[in-house]
């Protein structure tokens, strides 16, 4: 059985990674088409010179960082508060936001921002995208942190308070450090979903806030484009390196 499982795992990983490997290999193909022509860095050069692409990538990173910071902080506090005692409306709304299809969320936000415009002259832009991203990643953060909190022994906090700490100090000095891995995982999740989002972003993005997924979608719609191959390969390589690096750090 063990051998069977291992074989299956190889096949499963192949299924997961082969498409990306193929994209990577063909990003070095000098021909536009599937026929292999020769090694070339053309498409990477083209991607680098594409100003729109660079700006979209920068926007994506900016939005992801901003929304991750916001949603992680707010979500962690919220998870802690809910852990102490449930607030039905809040947890119910968080559940609801989890099950809302992306397109419904995107459209409802668009409609909302349109109403905001009537009264507050809010224009679609980076800020609307960041707000939208916080809205949908909040529930993910809360879930991850709550899961982590459930394995946390509440008596540690009580002990700290018995020894004279205020509630805030107990939270900061005792609970938070223990929660750290959970918070990190939640932040990672929030970052990834934000960086990857297309549907909601495309609905609430303004003129200056084109993100990488939007550019990728536009390019994919125009047909096969090897520049897309080079972009995706770069992203995967960069993130893969980041993961391996953080693994090394953790092990050492």
């Amino acid at each position: 059985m063990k051998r069977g499982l291992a074989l299956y795992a190889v096949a499963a990983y192949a299924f997961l990674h082969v498409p990306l490997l193929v994209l990577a290999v063909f990003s070095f193909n000098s021909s536009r088409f599937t026929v292999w022509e020769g090694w070339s860095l053309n498409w990477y050069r083209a991607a680098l010179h594409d100003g729109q692409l660079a700006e979209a990538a920068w926007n994506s990173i900016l939005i992801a960082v901003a929304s991750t910071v916001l949603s992680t902080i707010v979500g962690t506090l919220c998870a802690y508060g809910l852990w102490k005692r449930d607030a039905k409306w809040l947890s119910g709304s968080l559940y609801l936001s989890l099950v809302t299809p992306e397109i419904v969320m995107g459209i409802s936000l668009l409609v909302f921002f349109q109403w905001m415009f009537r009264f507050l002259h809010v224009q679609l832009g980076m800020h609307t995208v960041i707000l939208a991203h916080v809205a949908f990643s909040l529930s993910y953060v809360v879930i991850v942190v709550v899961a982590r909190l459930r394995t946390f022994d509440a008596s540690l906090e009580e002990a700290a308070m018995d020894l004279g700490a205020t509630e805030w100090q107990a939270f900061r000095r005792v609970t938070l450090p223990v929660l750290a891995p959970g918070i990190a995982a939640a932040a990672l999740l929030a970052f990834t979903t934000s960086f990857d989002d297309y549907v909601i972003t495309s609905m609430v993005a303004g003129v200056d806030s084109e993100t990488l997924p939007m550019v990728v979608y536009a390019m994919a719609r125009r047909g096969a484009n090897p520049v897309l191959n080079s972009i995706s390969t770069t992203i995967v390589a960069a993130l893969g390196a980041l993961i391996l690096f953080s693994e090394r750090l953790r092990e050492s």
Partner: protein
Amino acid sequence: MTRRTLFLMGLAGAAGCSRGNARRLNVFNWSSYVAPNTIPDFEKEFSVRVRYAVYESNEEMLARVMSGNSGWDVVFPTNYFIEPMRETGLLAELDHGRLPNLSQLDKPFQTPAWDPALRWGAPYMWNATGIAYNKKLTPAPGAWSDMWSPALAGHMTMLDDPVDVFAACLKKLGLRANSRSTGELIRAQREAILQKPLLRAYLNAEVRDQLVSGDVLAAQLWSTTAQQAIDASPEIDFVYPREGFAVYLDSAVILRESPRKELAHELLNYLLRTQVAAAIVVAARTATANGGARAFLPEAIRNNKTLYPSAEVMERGEWSQAATPEIQRLRDRLWTEVKSS
């Protein structure tokens, strides 16, 4: 002052500088619809920084601008979108005083049926929907009814657009493409449902690559996109179907929400210049509404039968019209039923 504060101030200053003091203009256009130097030249001449983005369909454009606070200044809707956009208050009226180059337009485009006084849009490029096909098909397709041929099953596509698909069906039945009769539309829908099993997919511009690679042998396609495919491969050709076809015009419009209407007018006037329009045609293979520009075009393009078909071919063409809200609702529902079948 701590070093940290100085550093942050420097960053802020740098951020401010990168924005520059140049004026801004936000332009949203169809993909592959300008020459490489069209926008940069405009930026240089008028000291403007243009944000230029592209879209693939009117619906995509409308989805972004319909909120009324999208931030775009100039967009390029197809003619049958102008009336709905005007009715929902999205457009700003054009000031002809700022658009002297309007006189460069071809006669028919100076008083189009949907906007006789050119109050809302400056005609830009026009195209028509026909059939792009691989020359190895014998006999070569020449009519819409050829797109219902079982011999092509699995190798042909239609556009992912109810307006175009129903227009083709209506023409196949010998009816007007802009029919407003419920009965006729239902007959057209039946044709579409019959055709669907034979289709490979409903694709827009992305079918161009599949035509070139040979995956697709016949596709309903716009003339400009077809010309781009022809440029990429000598095996592709384009035909205006015998039964007739729909003709479209894309115009430049100024959105009412724009705080930069004077600058937008400058852009429209600039695009109407004969040299500029001619350069766009050569680079992007489009068909310009600018009569003055046609004189500037190289011989090969001026007489290109795909982009500038002869008068007798144009006889069979029918200008697209905006549908009434009721007809649009019906067409929408019929299209959902087709896709659902």
